[in-house]
């Protein structure tokens, strides 16, 4: 049933679907309704990291050393944790400078150096070739195996048939055509390929689902879950050893660590990862979701790697089946045709996704940083005078795609058979890791120079060629094997796999140690020894201080010269066409409140810089520099002048920062002072009020005492009965005076916190009973009925006994005072609820008006009728009572409606405070 034709048909149908998705996304983007403006699509597109290597190769690697495949995914997880610091900075720099590729980024950072851009491009293309060949190998192998169904025969034993060679070549050519259709349909100013990103995101879903399907099938279909599978594997001694793989392996941990570091670099600096993560990013905010979604994706696609590896090893114990193919051969062996076909499509997804993005990224580099600078310099071509260069640019890119895929195919033919999938891929990882010092150094260290980057990259790349690429060719028989075993010309110290005698490590670790040593050493060493040029100095601070810049105009400070608007306009028109150039100029004019082309623009530094940045978005920084320089006359700035501009700017920034801070501090201090002043004024007012109220209160009894004593003094003939009455009044007023003074003193003590509180366990029931007994006489005199409802037992509260009696006396005497004069009635109730005791004193007097409910607790507030009678009491009692209750953690309030009496209540928390 699985005929070659059916498989080919399915594959083409799948590719057609991809193309439809891309086409749809592009149309939507043109209509301004982007489908990729979502953090989820962004995260899925990042999963282009998982290629055929992950899909087929991880299982192969797991089948040889257990967990050896995992650092390739754990490393990126760790690196992604740093993305918030590192990638955000790279994103910001790239947006401001319109970076089009990894090579462009490095070239731009080191003074827009075309030489450096070219070198990075060459390293990237050569370095990635093994990786592309891996994808071709995986697709052609899986196809070759699948057409043998129901037999399971390895491609290597099928032999070098012409048909088989054709498969890989066919795959390469079809992918080239597909990529051209995807990535080079038109020249985008922003270098965004929305259709491609949408298709890649879809492919990421397909490969994940296909892999999970196989995983579930093997784990739960063939075996009874993880436990069963691992238990059976543990019964085989060879497999049992793989469960503790780090033991006894020489350099086991070192290899693990280096693989982790290597893949940390790869996730940042593989050209395709840079493409999807940086160039295709449409919104910096997508980063915060991608930071965890993408690691989650990697976790998900790795869960079933070990089960499939062990399942394969158990199913094919004799070693005739290549472990790299277990994902496909296990469903085939179990006669699950559809699942096998799904796996094939999943593998195809993984491989095509990688090839499409990688070749688009590489072709952009090749065009902008290798071919264009050369063509522009080649004055005989008179490129500067050509009207329309869009076609030329697209042509170069298309050509580059075909060449890169053919080179990948050649590598597959040359060296593809000697290594497993993962080993091939790791060679590419080691190549792109060479970019790390130049990029990471470039964005955090202003001192890195062009020459330093050139030497570092060259040295690292040379070591990579010598220790990884040449051995790969030697193993495939293209170089004498003695080159590996005895070293070149028999010099043992130079053996590529044990360079300078360093032995006992695996090949990748060995190569990484030497290449990084050379790379970083040369980069730092040369940077420290050689002075920077003005261009480098300017770019270095634009990159390193990107978060301190404001807008794109900051680069314009560094330009001095003369230019004409029509020249600049024509330059843009030649690359983007007149319509695009018009809208670009209109945007520039619009931002300055002008209209294009009606208003005259001035060809100043800002416009020149603007045009250069726009151009850089299409042809790279180095080429844009050359093109702009060809239509303007510039005066070169010296390094001192650049420094001056930078210093000036940074001094101004520092100075204004300081000023801002000073003024903020001043404002804060002023606000504090104002608040303190308000508080003082308020206190002063309160004090005045207090003094005047107290003196007023003191004067009232004093006046009446004085009046009566004067009467008695002046008139000795007062009748004895009258005299007695007067003396009684004098005594009463004197008592009132004493009470008032005592209360004022008491209040002063409480408020200043100097009161002596004697705390003990107080039984409120007793307090109430004692107070009632003391008040008995008063109530009887006024003919007031008293009813107390006290529970049998109440818990004690922590309080001051005398103070509590004072509170109760105050409440009861108030009640007595304000009770109904004819049939007075006072109810006292003690209850316990929610860990607090509550005392209610209810009278049937005239009540308290709602607006007075709070006021009666303030100082000197008296409820007496101010017009007719004189106030009854000092107006301090309730205030002091409330202070006392609050001191012991309770609260006091009143509930009342005029006419129905008042209920004064307070609570006290039970138990120790």
């Amino acid at each position, binding site marked *: 049933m699985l005929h070659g034709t059916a498989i080919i048909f399915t594959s083409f149908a799948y590719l057609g679907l991809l193309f439809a998705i891309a086409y749809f996304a592009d149309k939507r983007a043109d209509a301004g309704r982007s489908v990729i403006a979502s953090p989820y699509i962004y995260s899925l597109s990042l999963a282009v990291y998982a290629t055929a290597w992950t899909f087929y190769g991880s299982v192969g690697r797991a089948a040889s050393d*257990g*967990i050896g495949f*995992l*650092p390739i995914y*754990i490393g990126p*997880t*760790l*690196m*992604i*944790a*740093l*993305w*918030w*610091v590192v990638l*955000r900075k790279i994103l910001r720099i790239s947006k401001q400078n319109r970076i089009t590729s990894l090579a462009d980024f490095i070239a731009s950072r080191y003074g827009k150096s075309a030489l450096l851009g070219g070198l990075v491009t060459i390293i990237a293309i050569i370095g990635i070739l093994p990786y592309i060949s891996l994808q071709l190998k995986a697709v052609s192998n899986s196809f070759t195996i699948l057409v043998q169904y129901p037999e399971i025969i390895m491609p290597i034993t099928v032999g070098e048939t012409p048909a088989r060679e054709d498969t890989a070549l066919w795959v390469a050519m079809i992918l080239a055509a597909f990529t051209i259709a995807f990535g080079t349909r038109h020249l985008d100013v922003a270098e965004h390929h929305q259709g491609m990103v949408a298709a890649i995101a879809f492919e990421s879903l397909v490969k994940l689902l296909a892999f999970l399907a196989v995983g579930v099938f093997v784990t739960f279909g063939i075996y009874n*879950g*993880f*436990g*069963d599978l*691992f*238990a059976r594997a*543990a019964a085989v001694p060879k497999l*049992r050893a793989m*469960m*503790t*793989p*780090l*033991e006894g392996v020489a350099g086991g*941990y070192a290899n*693990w*660590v280096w693989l*982790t570091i290597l893949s940390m670099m790869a996730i940042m600096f593989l050209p395709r990862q840079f493409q999807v993560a940086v160039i295709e990013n449409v919104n910096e905010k997508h980063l*915060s*979701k991608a*930071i*965890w979604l993408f*690691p*989650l994706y990697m*976790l998900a696609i*790795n*869960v079933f790697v*070990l089960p499939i590896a062990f399942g394969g090893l158990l199913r094919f114990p004799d070693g005739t089946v290549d472990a790299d193919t277990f994902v496909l051969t296990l469903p085939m062996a179990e006669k699950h045709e559809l699942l096998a076909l799904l796996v094939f499509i999943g593998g195809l997804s993984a491989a095509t996704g990688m090839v499409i993005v990688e070749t688009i990224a590489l072709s952009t580099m090749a065009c902008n940083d290798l071919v264009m600078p050369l063509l522009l310099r080649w004055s005989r071509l008179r490129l500067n005078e050509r009207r329309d260069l869009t076609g030329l640019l697209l042509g170069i890119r298309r050509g580059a795609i075909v060449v890169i895929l053919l080179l990948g195919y050649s590598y597959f033919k040359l060296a593809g058979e000697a290594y497993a999938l993962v080993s091939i891929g790791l060679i590419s990882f080691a190549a792109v890791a060479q970019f790390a010092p130049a990029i990471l150094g470039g964005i955090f260290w202003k001192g890195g120079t062009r020459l330093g980057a050139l030497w570092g990259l060259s040295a690292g790349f040379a070591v990579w060629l010598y220790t990884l690429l040449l051995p790969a060719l030697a193993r495939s028989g293209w170089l004498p094997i003695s080159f590996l075993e005895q070293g070149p010309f028999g010099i043992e110290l130079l053996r590529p796999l044990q360079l300078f005698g360093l032995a006992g490590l695996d090949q990748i670790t060995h190569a990484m140690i030497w290449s990084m040593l050379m790379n970083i050493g040369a980069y730092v060493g040369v940077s420290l020894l050689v002075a920077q040029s003005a261009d480098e100095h300017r770019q270095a601070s634009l990159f390193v201080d990107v*978060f301190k810049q404001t807008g794109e105009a900051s680069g314009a400070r560094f330009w001095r010269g003369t230019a004409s608007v029509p020249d600049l306009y024509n330059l843009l028109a030649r690359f983007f066409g007149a319509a695009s150039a018009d809208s670009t100029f209109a945007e520039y004019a619009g931002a300055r409140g002008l209209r294009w082309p009606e208003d005259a623009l001035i060809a100043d530094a800002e416009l020149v810089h603007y045009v250069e940045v726009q151009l850089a978005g299409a042809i790279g920084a180095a080429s844009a520099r050359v093109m702009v320089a060809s239509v303007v006359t510039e005066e070169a700035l010296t390094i001192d002048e650049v420094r001056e501009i930078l210093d000036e700017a940074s001094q101004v920034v520092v100075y204004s920062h300081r000023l801002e801070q000073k003024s903020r501090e001043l404002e804060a201090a002023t606000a504090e002072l104002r608040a303190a002043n308000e508080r003082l004024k308020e206190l002063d007012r309160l004090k005045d009020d207090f003094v005047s109220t107290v003196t007023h209160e003191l004067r009232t009894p004093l006046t009446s005492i004085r009046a009566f004593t004067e009467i008695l003094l002046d008139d000795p003939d007062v009748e004895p009965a009258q005299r007695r009455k007067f003396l009684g009044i004098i005594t009463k007023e004197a008592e009132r005076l004493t009470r008032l003074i005592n209360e004022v003193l008491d209040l002063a003590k409480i408020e200043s916190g100097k009161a002596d509180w004697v705390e003990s366990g107080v039984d409120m029931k007793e307090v109430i009973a004692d107070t009632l007994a003391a008040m008995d006489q008063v109530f009887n005199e006024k003919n007031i009925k008293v009813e107390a409802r006290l529970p049998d037992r109440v818990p004690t509260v922590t309080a001051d006994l005398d103070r509590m009696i004072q509170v109760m006396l105050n409440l009861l005497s108030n009640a007595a005072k304000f009770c109904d004069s004819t049939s007075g009635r006072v109810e006292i109730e003690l209850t316990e609820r929610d860990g607090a005791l509550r005392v209610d004193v209810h009278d049937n007097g005239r009540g308290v008006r709602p607006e007075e409910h709070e006021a009666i607790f303030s100082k000197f507030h008296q409820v007496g009728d101010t017009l007719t009678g004189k106030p009854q009491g000092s107006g301090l009692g309730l205030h002091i009572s409330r202070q006392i209750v609050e001191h012991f953690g309770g609260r006091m309030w009143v509930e009342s409606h005029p006419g129905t009496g008042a209920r004064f209540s307070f609570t006290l928390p039970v138990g120790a405070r």
Partner: protein
Amino acid sequence: MSEFQSKGQRFVALCMLGLVLFNYPILALFNVSGTVLGVPVLYAYLFVAWAALIALMVIVAETVD
């Protein structure tokens, strides 16, 4: 700016944590025979630690301070 800085510091700390969790000697502690719920100890440890690290990254990434 301070929000970005504190978030950045948390992420750097997570990276450091990961470097420790997936490295010698912590890794060696789990490189022993035996199983957890049927899964070999080392495998179980790696995947659980990995998932935990991602969970922490979710928290840091999605926290708005």
